């Protein structure tokens, strides 16, 4: 079947088997390798993408189901305006707090964080914990991930700006 999906603002069209998952479409058809396969049964969250702005598991959705939707992957986490090599505030906070180790779950975590902060710009630590509870990480014990998201929230609120705004 022929389908077209808007991925990161670009229409990607392909003839695919109906059984192809959105995860495989993103990785193999669109060639965007930042979305990772972990369990492929909807538990680990490594394949998290944004579908019409909401974090979803791309391994549980067929590509055909996503036709007509807008998909955002880690490659365009903060819009497509950024230059390669330039980090978003959330990504930068993950670096600052070292909220990762091997990096495999990290794109999913960053997108889960983005969704949370869109809905709740000033989350508590417990709210952050809840928001990432569907994303498994085997490296960090989550502590520095939560630190990173708290830091990102603070920075997005502008609390890190110099007082004079300079």
């Amino acid at each position: 079947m022929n389908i077209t999906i808007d991925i990161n603002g670009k229409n990607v069209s392909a003839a695919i088997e109906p059984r192809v998952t959105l995860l495989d479409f993103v990785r193999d058809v669109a060639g965007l390798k930042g979305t990772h396969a972990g369990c492929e049964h909807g538990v680990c969250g490594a394949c998290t993408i944004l579908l019409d702005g909401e974090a979803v598991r791309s391994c549980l959705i067929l590509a055909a189901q996503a036709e007509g939707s807008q998909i955002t992957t880690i490659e365009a986490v903060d819009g497509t305006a950024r230059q390669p090599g330039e980090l978003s505030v959330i990504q930068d906070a993950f670096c600052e707090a070292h909220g990762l180790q091997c990096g495999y779950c990290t794109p999913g975590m960053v997108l889960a964080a983005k969704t949370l902060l869109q809905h709740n710009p000033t989350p508590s630590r417990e709210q952050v914990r809840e928001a990432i509870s569907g994303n498994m990480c085997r490296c960090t014990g989550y502590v520095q991930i939560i630190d990173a998201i708290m830091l990102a929230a603070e920075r997005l609120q502008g609390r890190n700006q110099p007082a004079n705004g300079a």
Partner: protein
Amino acid sequence: MVHDMGSKPMRDKKYRFLSQPRRVVEDRRFVAGKGKYIADYDRADMAHVALMPCHLPAARIDAIDASAALDMLGVIDVVTGAELVAAIDPLMNGLDTPKVRRYPLAVGQVRYAGEWVCAVIAESRAIAEDAIEHIRLETTALPYVLDPEQALRDDSPLVHPDHNSNVLLDKKFVWGPVDDDFAAADHQLNFCVTWGRNSTVPIETFGVVAEWNAWEQMLDIRASVQMPKYADQIAHALGLAGNQVRVHYDIDVGGSYGVKRGIKHAVLIGYLARKLHRPVRLIEDRLENMRAGDAHGPERKFDVSVAFDKDGTVRSMKMRALDNAGAYAGRAPFQLGKPIGAIVGPYRIGSVAYQAISVTTNKAAQEAVRGFGQAPTNYALETAMDRVSAFLDMDRLALRQHNFIKTDEFPYLIPSGSTYDSGDYHTVIDKVMAAAEYPKLVATCNQLRKDGMMAGIGIATCLEPSGGNSSFEPLLNERNQTTTWMESCQINIDALGTVTARIHTTSSGQGHETLVSTVIGEILGIDPDSIRVVRPNSLESLPGNSPVGSRMAIMLGGAAARAAEKLKAKIIAIAAHHLQCDATRIDYQGGAMLSANGRHITWDDIIESAHRQIHQLPDGMDPGLASFDIMQVPTGGDLPKDGKVHMYPCYSFEFHLVLVAFDPIIGKPEIRSYTIGHDCGTVINPAIVSGMTYGGIAHGIGAALLEEFAYDESGQLMTQSFLDYLMPSSHEVPDIQLVKYCTPSPHTVFGQKGSGESGYLGAPAAISSAINHAVAGLDISFDKLPIRMSVISDKIAAATHHRSDSG
């Protein structure tokens, strides 16, 4: 949450970059989704592999008919164990068990449920999976054995009939006057505890891509691997020369923590690439990974006796450790060996008898898991300390403090032959007790009990032996003469004056690029962020042994430091030649300048001389600015003697203090407070060490409460997916208070020790201690990990009913 409670000054020097809060170089590409993982590696014309399992735990393979599968469009080939056995050598295992042969696919006989019997190669993974359904496998079921004690009996089914026994290893050691100590002690007690089969279960499964270039006679391997001597083992099995296998180290590995060994996978895929003259790829799916990736961890039963006096002095210990290796040897038997290097933990136990038994059963094969057997042994040891305390009605912490090696007793020789380098256990305990506000913790525990909850405080101490030379191999197998476990680093300063270091391993989140750039920057006095660290392929590499055994801070950090010192010496020699003074009179000022008698020479001048002006160099000096170092393990190098050997140069220490509470009917343990004291000597990057420690604790929480590869009586793995193999989510891991302390090691360049296994080694013991403390009043105990909520509620219910029945 990091609570740095201060530390001893790190020797007397101030570091510019080392131990400073600096970002981790690798993080930039990972947060952008720009890591280079094995599944991201695409090749035109790539063939894909799926693996057909047999569902029986033991079976004779009578026939495999793949004709229908081979007729399918897009199917390229189907390969069986019978084909492999004629073409390749068995995988190496390091033991002296020649009749326990292991191949990538079952040969003649299936030895565990899920074992791969054939590989289907197709134009896509989906087609390969479809084709499996068209292969006819005819088998005859054979008797099987799952329980390790049963596997030891004479009437047990044999997993490897040719071996004529299920025993892979049975070694008895007696270190010191055990019988005399037991006879002289006031008391002794015996108990049995069992460590359940769990593993590190990285979120990325194992994957490998192999390409054979017939014109160059070269096999290129890319894999998500953490395996010492990987290229050598692949070449050995495939009958290739060492320089015909090129393992590319620039693949980012999506988590490993020990298990990503992938040797059977790489040998299979390498064989297929040569046979088919196409790039071939295998990426395990989760099911293949869980049941047949051969990546389970230790499953170990301990029978322990301890002899002690009424004042709490633990004199001696007898430990029998029976490990269920699963169907093949893997690295499982050696995981009984590493704990010998810290068999008495941080305690002055004067003598030990240790029996290490490894048996085969019809379960999946084991691989190395974080700590290489140390976490299970520590669980047994700490349970002993809790049991002795209960017997004597003595405070659990006071008993430990009474038995601790004191800080002025280092270096300390333990009965099994290892010498501990340094430590200050009492101080770490004091700092943790202060940080956790222990009296408040006790009050909280008591209040929870008053409110009808079960609540308990758990404590555990633990050593992390680090940087070892694999000398458990010759200790457990006399024909194995391994005495070095070297690591290496190369550095080049180019003609523009910038520094590039080469390291010879893959990385799976440990931050090796950050480690090496920080160390080199510190020694050369230049900004670590200006140093590039690359991971070339195995043919461009010097010898190394990959990041196993908490060794990279010590060994890779050590090799990088030594290579940098050699460069620095050359730079100083060039400067002295220019300035016409003795090298000892040169004041090395890092990247800026070198001065003597008020004269100076710039970094750029030295680069220019080294790269273009040999007439400006001292007589006989080679041009260029490059160095390398192949570093032997500090303190290592001797073969075992009389059943003893010195194993590890460095011993990190940790102390866990936790409060666990649960409803007596529901039985779901919640960690209400978690504090860990951690001393791994001089820290190279604080964020990396903190992160590893938190992550290790999370993994330990899983081992203690949730994670188990559980088989049913018919030999089927019941936990094959993330729906039933439960791992801690962010809800199960509490905020953790980390108390840092630093007792430098005298054996390493900066005083650093290992930390890659921290947290995991002690957390299971601490959580078990807390739960057992909570239920002590009911006269019940939990003797097997994981302690699942169902077990807790059932046992409490039984105990309560029993009481009301008898009362």
